[in-house]
Structures are given as structure tokens and as C-alpha cells.
């Protein structure tokens, strides 16, 4: 398969449960070797889409082709060539690290020698050397996620499907997990990953935003920021964040400030507005009037979180 070839094509993919439409006419293409991020809030249809792509769920309408195979018709034909890590922990808790990996390897028909080689590779990759005989249930969350990924790539699949792989894992382990994904991607493995962490979305080559079953934006993170952001972001470093947010929001509500959004961003405050540089004076005046002191103010590159919140807001309006 040539580089940049398309590995997944979904067209008009739709799933209805009774009267509820979980996935509504979704179209996307995934290229070989890219990390494709499927981004959306809980219940937006991410898992349903993955399950249809794996042939676990029959779509109501539309088609999906994975590695040139019509998954709806012949779900069995792609199993040897894909790996899957489900939202819930997909390994057996009462088996040891090694037993889990051996079972995965045998399930994909690996012979003894190949199995041992891959096992060593995966154990090293997930940093579990020396813990091969530990019960899986005794591993901390981050290790278990890496082991689950290891089990999913043991048979060297061409595509890996990851459904919220880092949910409930600490930031350091998340970083380590994404390092592994980069390594895989560099080896031309296609990665389809769902997440609702915005910082993770920044790491993807290509993104699709899904909301209430519909894709509302897609493209590279840069494209999405450029296309969807109808304003600039002013980052304020206040002494009292609550005071700052309240003062700016009430000014916005009174119509004194033409800003789109005021959000708390950790201990910082983000103000989103078109041509925010022209309103710096008004913002300063508002904050002084409310007696909120500000240490620093800078116009910054919008993050995906800013974009996401801004676009969700537009959806609601």
C-alpha cells in the first residue's frame, strides 16, 4: 500500500437506536500512517462509530470501508489486520502480563518464535520489563493502558482503533502513552483514536469534531483553529481569577464589552473576541473599576479548547 493511501472511508454512516440517532450521516477518510483524532463530548457518538467500523454494530445506513474491505458485509476479513483497545479495560485482570499477551498473540495465530519476539518488544515498549508475571489487576492505570495498547499491536496490525485510551490516567502516563502512538505512526501504522482531552487532540495529524452524532468540523488542528475561530484570544493573568471573570462577564452582559466568551483557564482567564487588541483599553477599564488586579495580559494563539468551546457556543446559539 503506498504512503498516504486511504485506509478508512466512511460515507453517510448512520446509526439509529429506536428514535434516537446516535450517529447521523458521518463522512470521513483516514490516511495511512496518520493519527486521526475523533473528538467529542461524552455521548456524542464516538464509540458507536468505532463499533460500526469494527463490524460489531450494524449501521442503519451508510457504508464503511476499512483497508479496502466492506466491513458491514465481511467483518471477519479485517480482524487479522486491525487492533482494538476498547473504552473499558480490554485485558483479563486475573491473568498476568505475560498470560494476557500470550493469549492475544495466540488469538492472532502467532507461532512460538514470533510470539516470543513480539512479546519482548511489547514488554519493552510498555516499560513492563521485569513485571511479566505480575497480575494485571495489580498494575497502576497508566501501565495497564500501555499493556492494553501492547496487546492490541502484538500482531502488527495496519490500523489500531483506540476508544478513549487515556480516560482516567494521570498526565505523565498520558504523555508516555502518546509517545508510543507517535512511534507507531512513524512506522506507518494508522491510528484512529477517540478522546475528549483537548490537549491530546493537538497531537493528532487530523481531527474530526463530532457533536450529537454529526461531524461539525474536520481538518488538521491548525486548519480547524484557522477556520473555526472567529476571534483572538487574550490571556489574562489575574491575581483573583473569580473577580476578573465576574467583572468581565457582567460587563459583557450589560453590552459594554463586545467579547464573545470569557472562560476560566486554570488560574488564567481567556477572553475571546474579534480584534481583541482594539478592546484592551475597555477591558482594563472594566477591571480597574471592579478593583481586580491583573499581573499580565497577552494575546495568544488559540488552543483547541478555545476553539472547541467557541464552536460549541455557536452551536447552542
Amino acid at each position, binding site marked *: 500500500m503506498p504512503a498516504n493511501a486511504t485506509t478508512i472511508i466512511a460515507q453517510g454512516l448512520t446509526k439509529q437506536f429506536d428514535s434516537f440517532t446516535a450517529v447521523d450521516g458521518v463522512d470521513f477518510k483516514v490516511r495511512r500512517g496518520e493519527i486521526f483524532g475523533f473528538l467529542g463530548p461524552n455521548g456524542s457518538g464516538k464509540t458507536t462509530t468505532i*463499533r460500526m467500523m*469494527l*463490524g*460489531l454494530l450494524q449501521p442503519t445506513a451508510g457504508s464503511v470501508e476499512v483497508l479496502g474491505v466492506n466491513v458491514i458485509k465481511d467483518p*471477519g476479513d479485517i*480482524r*487479522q489486520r*486491525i487492533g*482494538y*483497545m*476498547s*473504552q*473499558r*479495560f*480490554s*485485558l*483479563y*485482570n*486475573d*491473568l498476568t502480563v505475560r*498470560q494476557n499477551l*500470550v*493469549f*492475544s498473540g*495466540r*488469538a*492472532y*495465530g502467532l507461532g512460538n518464535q514470533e510470539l516470543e519476539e513480539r512479546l519482548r518488544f511489547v514488554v519493552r515498549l510498555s516499560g513492563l520489563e521485569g513485571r511479566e508475571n505480575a497480575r494485571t489487576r495489580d498494575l497502576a492505570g497508566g501501565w495497564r493502558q500501555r499493556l492494553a495498547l501492547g496487546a492490541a499491536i502484538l500482531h502488527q496490525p495496519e490500523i489500531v482503533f483506540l476508544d478513549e485510551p487515556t480516560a482516567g490516567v494521570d498526565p505523565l502516563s498520558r504523555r508516555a502513552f502518546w509517545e508510543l502512538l507517535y512511534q507507531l505512526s512513524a512506522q506507518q501504522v494508522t491510528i484512529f483514536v477517540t478522546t475528549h482531552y483537548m490537549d491530546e487532540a493537538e497531537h493528532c495529524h487530523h481531527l474530526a469534531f463530532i457533536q450529537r452524532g454529526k461531524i461539525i468540523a474536520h481538518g488538521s488542528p491548525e486548519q480547524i483553529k484557522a477556520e473555526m475561530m472567529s476571534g483572538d484570544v487574550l490571556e489574562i493573568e489575574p491575581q483573583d481569577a473569580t473577580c476578573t471573570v465576574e467583572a468581565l462577564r457582567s460587563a459583557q452582559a450589560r453590552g459594554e464589552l463586545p467579547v464573545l466568551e470569557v472562560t476560566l483557564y486554570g488560574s488564567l482567564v481567556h477572553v475571546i473576541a474579534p480584534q481583541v487588541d482594539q478592546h484592551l483599553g475597555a477591558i482594563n477599564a472594566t477591571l480597574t473599576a471592579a478593583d481586580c488586579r491583573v499581573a499580565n495580559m497577552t494575546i495568544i494563539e488559540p488552543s483547541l479548547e478555545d476553539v472547541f468551546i467557541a464552536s460549541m457556543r455557536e452551536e447552542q446559539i
Partner: protein
Amino acid sequence: MWKRIARVNALVIKEFIHLRSDWWLPAFMLIGGAMELLLIGWATSRPITNLPMLVLDQDRSPQSRKLIIALENTETFNLDTQVEDMQTIHDRLERGQINAALIIPPDFDQQLTAADGQAALQLLLNGAESMAATNALRATEGLVRELGLGITLKRLGMEADDLSGFDPSLRVWFNEKLSEALYTTPAELGLMLEFTILLFAALTFSREKELGTLESLLVTPFSSLEIIIGKSIPVILVSFADFLILLAMVHFAFEVPIRGSLPLLLLLTLIYMLAVLGIGLVISIISSNQHQAFLLVMIVGFVDLMFTGYAAPVESMPAFLQLVAQVVPSHHWMAILRGIALKGADLSALWPNVLALVILGLVIGTVSLRFVRRALE
């Protein structure tokens, strides 16, 4: 083909690891089953004795005393108290402290000795405990009949030797000592086998559903048939080992004979196990967690139990239920077990049950296999 066998083998190994880490479940089924068998066997291996009984003797004559002593000698009753009034009898019966009460009327001796006397006795039984009541009635009836015969002879002025009447010679086949244990322990064994397979089979898929691992298993190259075979082999092996141990126990501890062919019994047991396995797998695939599966096993198991003849003989059930019994595998298997073990029967006698079991095994096996395969795909 080799790849398939290797895959199934990997699944079998995995299932055995689960069983080892949940070792208490097979251990519970085996030890619990063995204890149940021992209890049932011992409790039912002795004749019924020591039923608590009260006597209200309003006559207080030599004749009434003779009757009471004779009753005591049957050993069926425990007659340590005599009471003076009906109220006590009434109270004790109501509280379940006694199973029977005998009331001897004031003119008992008089009626007995008069040439045309009509002696009467009143026996009150606690029908709420029907088994005890039946035995009390049987013992009293036997005693009274003997007594009546004595009176008749006396009134005719004859000695017992002068009258050679009808003397029935009783012989019980297949269970010469009429030991209840020979009846109850095979039934209990059947019950244990059924519940063991049902439970282990019912947990196979429901456990993976509950843990969320079934979905991951389904996206691997395992075919649905391979998954079913791989998950069934450990269930069959463990249940069969369980059965062999319990059968040996019944045989050695309660002297339940195996008069017929043991290989035939084992072969037919395997066929029976496949039918029950099919039912268990269907339960497993329709349950979304282990609790649901467990409750369904209880329902199916106890309904089945009714048709093994454990609680009441199927022959005395209403016609409709007798018809239902014909499609319950355990009904036929129990008949085969009793036939081979107690009667030494072979295929020429057992063929209707064997045929029914084989047909049921095939039908249930095929239908459940299809059902589970479709559910997995």
C-alpha cells in the same frame, strides 16, 4: 486448521486460568455437592423413628396400657408423655411439637372385651408434615390390624396356630433393603451435575460481558464456533470430573451399586451434559452480567429438578406435565442413571430414554449453538 486448534487451545488455557483464580467456585460446587450428598444420604438411609407423640388415655385399663406399650415397641414413636386433656394435644399439635396424638376413649377396654364390642381409637396427625404423618399412620395401622386379628381369634376361641390364612411374602427388587438412600442419592447426584454444568456454562459469556472483555474477544480472528468450543471444553472437563468424584462417593459411601455398564453410563452422561451445556450457554449469552445468569440458572435448574422424579414421581403428575417431562433431558438421564446403576439395565431396556436423550441432545445442542453463534456475530 492447525491455526484454529491453536486458537481454541489458547482459549481453553485462558479459561482454566480464570477457573484457577476463581478456584473457590469449582471447589464450592464439589465440596458443597459432596456435603449435600452426605447429608441427604445419611438423613434418608435410616427408617423413620422417634416421631414425637402424645397419648390421652381416658380408659387407663390393662388393655389400653398394652396398646401403648405395643406402640412404643414399634420405635416409630417417642411416647414419653401422657396428658390429661385435649387442650394440651391441641396446643402441641399447633406448635408442631408433636406429629401425632392418640386418644383412647373411656370405654376402650369394655368394648374390646364385650362379645359384640366396637372399640374405637382416635388418631390425630399433623398433616402439615405429610411424610411424618404418613409414616405414623402406617405404623399405627399395622399395629391395630394385628391387634384386631388377635381379638377376632380370641372371640372365635382359636389359637393363632389354628388359623393359617393368607401370608404375603414380600420381595423388593433393585433395592432390597428399601433404603431411601438408594433413591435419593442418585437424584441428588443428578441435581449436582445439572447445576454444576449450568452454572459454569452460564458464567462463560456473562462474566466477559460484565468485565467488558467480550467485545475485545469478538474483534480478534476467533470465529464464533471457536469461541464456543474453547469455552465449552473446560466446562465439560470440570463438570465431568465433578460427576466422577461424586459418583464414586455415592457408590462407596452409600453402597449405591452400578450393576449395569459403567462405560455406557458415562457415554450417556456426556450426551446429557452437552444438552445441559447448550441451555447454560444460551443463559450466558442472554444475561448481561453474572448475577442475571446465576438467577436464570436457579430458575431453569429447579424447574428441571421437578421432572427428575426427585420431589414426586413423574407418573403421578397431571398429563400435561408428564408431556413436558418428555422434553426435559434430566428426566431421561435420571431414568438411565437409575436403570443402569440399580437395575443393571442395558440398551434393550433403556432405549426409549436413550433415544429421547440423544434426540434432545441433538436438538438442544443445534438450536443453542445457532442461537449463541448468531448472538456473537
